[in-house]
């Protein structure tokens, strides 16, 4: 703390806060947004490793023609779980980890508006993930046993290990109920006529995950609208906060569609309805049931397309933070960036039929949705232009975070271009269900979302953990990942155009697809190696990492004004915001501005929090506030956890009972009934919980 004190103004004395609690119980009951961010981040990263393992198995199987690392059934399970994991258990929760960490800090708040609801979001996310992963984890031994048996018999010609996989499948619970219908679960494949209990696991898992996402989204909207520090008008908000706001609105409006779609599916499966069933089997004959599988496709993609923006906009938000800081320039066209983000979100609700061009839906919807899809490329292009213009003429610093951010810009352009190609219907008819589409969505999801999220990890690591990640290892990781990514996914464009369909477990030698497939598999290994380097980096940093300063990158937003890692209460004194890039203003502009008219100088967090003695306005604010009481931090609570456990048991009870129970009053499974009771108890406990 600076030692200059002006005699006439007595700075308030600030007693040391009590040390943060630690121990398991404190984590189970925490409502601190920074801890919740860590829990979200760590869980998401673990699922990233699992999803990556599944991807490697897929690539191993496809590395040569007529391969038998996994059989067709297991292959279907792998791509289903891989996709569902990456979307719902990696990109979304990792984005939410950043929302949690960054948003309250960027708007100068002590926490989110509803801290307990925030904890509930995390626990419910974990519950939903568990429902999906209980079968997956039990099936992994069988998968590896099969691969080992094939290798053994290929090398030694002995069938010694062949019995192991069937044994695992027969004896491990849940090993045979791994979802296998693809991440968008098209009807009628998901109807009970064609599938088993695995669909119930998938449907209920998504249902629970949806509850978690929506609870989080409500919370962030209210936080951003209502908890901004004085002076932070909407158009002074950092771009990441804007992205969070817009993504949360998308979640609130898009998730109901899939929730209802899944409710109808569950009724079809357990309640005997026929929403998605065109035919039903009665006494061995097919009779018209009156339902329509297209209803599922509509409902799913009304959610599904906004969902892809839910996946990419947080990544864009991170890039909006990273690029200006390492270009040493404010973001080019801030207001246009805000409007472009809003426009993408708005248009995103009007393009869903582009996923259904080949269903024979008719020329009018096809033409209309083709046009609206192309329209979306405009605001997206605006963003690319703004990033380029921000870098233009800046003094660029290629830190690892910056490399990943620029990586997103370049790779997303490729994915965006193939997206516009899909919007051209005759072309899409050729691309649909081929590897071309696989290439497209990996360029936007991996080259887009994942690149930016990893860049975000490098950028915010010092703020969360107070240690700097190693830049040299980081750059090696980036270049390896960049090369591996392009080696894996660029050839898929060729494979798709050459006719290779997605979701087939193997291909013949004569197809001529083997060359690009082995290249892609080699690329996948390089990506795996880059992730390994990241893990090494994290371990080394935790042990030997350099201590981080409050603002190691010379960032411009409020989170960099407080120590790294931030204290529990974030801001000792609520900052007063006067400018968009507040810290840069304080540091660089203020000196000039204040010349000649010192008392008009606006005071901000830097002035107030770090140099209170020098800051007349800051002291005045602090004194006025000193009369109001103390810093109130929300109390820890175990009700969010209990509520999530109740929800988990409610869903799990349905799964472990006979799935074909009637939905009658007395058919309710006992575990579910217990879960429901727990849920209601926790809800009332929560409502009546006294403040400390």
């Amino acid at each position, binding site marked *: 703390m600076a030692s200059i004190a002006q005699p006439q103004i007595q700075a308030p004395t600030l007693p040391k806060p009590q040390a943060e609690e630690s121990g398991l119980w404190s984590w189970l009951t925490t409502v601190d947004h920074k801890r919740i961010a860590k829990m979200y981040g760590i869980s998401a990263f673990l699922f990233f490793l699992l999803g990556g393992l599944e991807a490697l198995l897929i690539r191993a199987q496809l590395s040569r023609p007529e391969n038998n690392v996994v059989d067709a059934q297991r292959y279907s399970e792998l791509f289903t779980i891989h996709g569902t994991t990456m979307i719902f258990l990696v990109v979304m929760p990792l984005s939410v980890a950043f929302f949690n960490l960054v948003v309250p800090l960027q708007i100068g708040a002590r926490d989110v*508006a509803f801290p307990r609801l925030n904890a509930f979001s995390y626990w419910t996310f974990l519950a939903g993930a568990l429902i999906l992963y209980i079968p997956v984890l039990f099936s992994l031994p069988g998968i590896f046993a099969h691969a080992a048996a094939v290798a053994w018999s290929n090398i030694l010609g002995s069938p010694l290990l062949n019995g192991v996989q069937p044994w695992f499948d027969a004896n491990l619970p849940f090993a045979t109920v791994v979802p296998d219908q693809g991440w968008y679960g098209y009807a009628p494949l998901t109807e009970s006529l064609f599938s088993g209990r695995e669909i119930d696991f998938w449907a209920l898992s998504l249902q629970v995950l949806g509850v978690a996402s929506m609870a989080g989204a409500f919370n962030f909207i209210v936080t951003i609208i209502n908890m901004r520090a004085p002076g932070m008008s909407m158009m002074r908000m950092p771009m990441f906060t804007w992205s969070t706001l817009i993504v949360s609105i998308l979640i609130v409006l898009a998730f109901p569609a899939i929730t209802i779609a899944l409710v109808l599916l569950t009724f079809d499966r357990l309640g005997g309805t026929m929403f998605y069933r065109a035919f039903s089997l009665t006494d061995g004959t097919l009779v018209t049931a009156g339902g329509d599988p297209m209803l599922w496709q509509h409902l799913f993609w009304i959610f599904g397309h906004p969902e892809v923006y839910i996946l990419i906009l947080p990544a864009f938000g991170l890039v909006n933070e990273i690029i200006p800081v390492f270009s040493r320039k404010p973001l080019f066209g801030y207001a246009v960036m805000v409007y472009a983000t809003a426009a993408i979100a708005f248009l995103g609700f009007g393009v869903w039929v582009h996923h259904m061009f080949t269903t024979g839906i008719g020329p009018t919807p096809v033409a209309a949705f083709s046009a609206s899809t192309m329209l979306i490329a405009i605001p997206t292009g605006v963003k690319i232009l703004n990033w380029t213009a921000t870098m233009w003429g800046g003094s660029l610093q290629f830190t690892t975070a910056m490399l990943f951010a620029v990586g997103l810009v370049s790779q997303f352009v490729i994915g965006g271009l193939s997206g516009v190609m899909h919007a051209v219907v005759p072309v899409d008819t050729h691309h649909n269900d081929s590897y071309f589409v696989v290439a497209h969505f990996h360029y936007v999801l991996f080259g887009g979302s994942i690149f930016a999220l990893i860049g975000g990890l490098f950028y915010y690591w010092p703020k969360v953990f107070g240690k700097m990640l190693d830049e040299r290892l980081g750059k090696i990781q980036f270049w390896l990942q960049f090369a591996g990514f392009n080696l894996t996914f660029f050839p898929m464009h060729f494979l798709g155009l050459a006719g290779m369909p997605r979701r087939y477990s193997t291909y013949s030698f004569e197809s001529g697809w083997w060359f690009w497939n082995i290249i892609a598999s080699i690329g996948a290994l390089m990506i795996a190696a880059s992730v390994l380097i990241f893990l090494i980096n994290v371990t080394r940093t935790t042990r030997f990492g350099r201590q981080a300063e409050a603002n190691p990158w010379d960032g411009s937003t409020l989170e960099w004004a407080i120590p790294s890692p931030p204290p529990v209460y974030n801001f000792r004194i609520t900052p007063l915001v006067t400018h968009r890039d507040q810290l840069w203003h304080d540091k660089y502009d203020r000196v000039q501005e204040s010349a000649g008219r010192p008392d008009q100088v606006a005071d901000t967090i830097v002035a107030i929090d770090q140099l209170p003695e020098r800051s007349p306005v800051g002291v005045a604010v602090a004194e006025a506030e000193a009369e109001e009481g103390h810093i109130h931090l929300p109390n820890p609570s175990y009700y969010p956890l209990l509520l999530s456990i109740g929800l988990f048991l409610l869903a799990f009870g349905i799964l472990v009972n006979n799935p074909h129970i009637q939905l009658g009053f007395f058919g309710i499974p006992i575990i579910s009934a217990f879960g429901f009771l727990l849920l209601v108890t926790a809800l009332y406990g929560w409502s009546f919980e006294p403040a400390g």
Partner: protein
Amino acid sequence: MAIAIEVETARGAGHIDHGGHGHSEHPPTSTGLDSRKMLMWLFLASDCMFFGTLISTYMIYRNRAIELGTPPYPNEIFDIPYTSVSAFVLLMSSLTMVLALSAIQRGDHRGLRIWIAATALLGAIFVGGQFFEFTEFTHEGLGLSTSVFGASFFVLTGFHGAHVTIGVVWLLSILFISLRGGMPAEKAVDVEIAGLYWHFVDIVWIVIFTLVYLIPYADGPEGVVEEAPHAFLRLVTVGERFLAALPF
């Protein structure tokens, strides 16, 4: 349990939700709007999407039973006067809800209890009426798996009925809290939030009632959909049916 941090304070930028019986002093929010009220508005926005999805599903399937010739048909089983009465009951409950809120805002605890109890009672009558209607329909052979018309009818109206049921439980909880003296006038916003929910559920019923019961169905179980009547004619028919259905 509290993390006791005793530091000189600052004006919180917003109100953090501390728990049911929070501090009386709520720091101002950026917009001046109550955060919990805003949360309820957002929930209702997403609830619009929930109902919107179910209503669309129903609108797609409403004529399917007729088209496919799988009885019972909507025009046979709907008893519009009966449902109109229960719709009227639900609408009246919005009135009593308004009276309850205005009572607590004036600090009139007796008024709050009376009107909350009345609202809950009217809501319960509505749910009871729906339960009776459902059993009636089941007797006439319309089940979840009879036809997609039946399925989408039961799921849509059942989803609404579940909303009303939750609302009744909520209102009774408020009544209980008030009887134990835990509902001072400063906490009128608690009642207001419940009221927002309640009015929303009412408004949704007006939409459902119109779309499910009042708009005419294709006639005749012959498996042919009739030419849709002229829009104006249709409106007149809706109006006529509504007038005919009024209980006075």
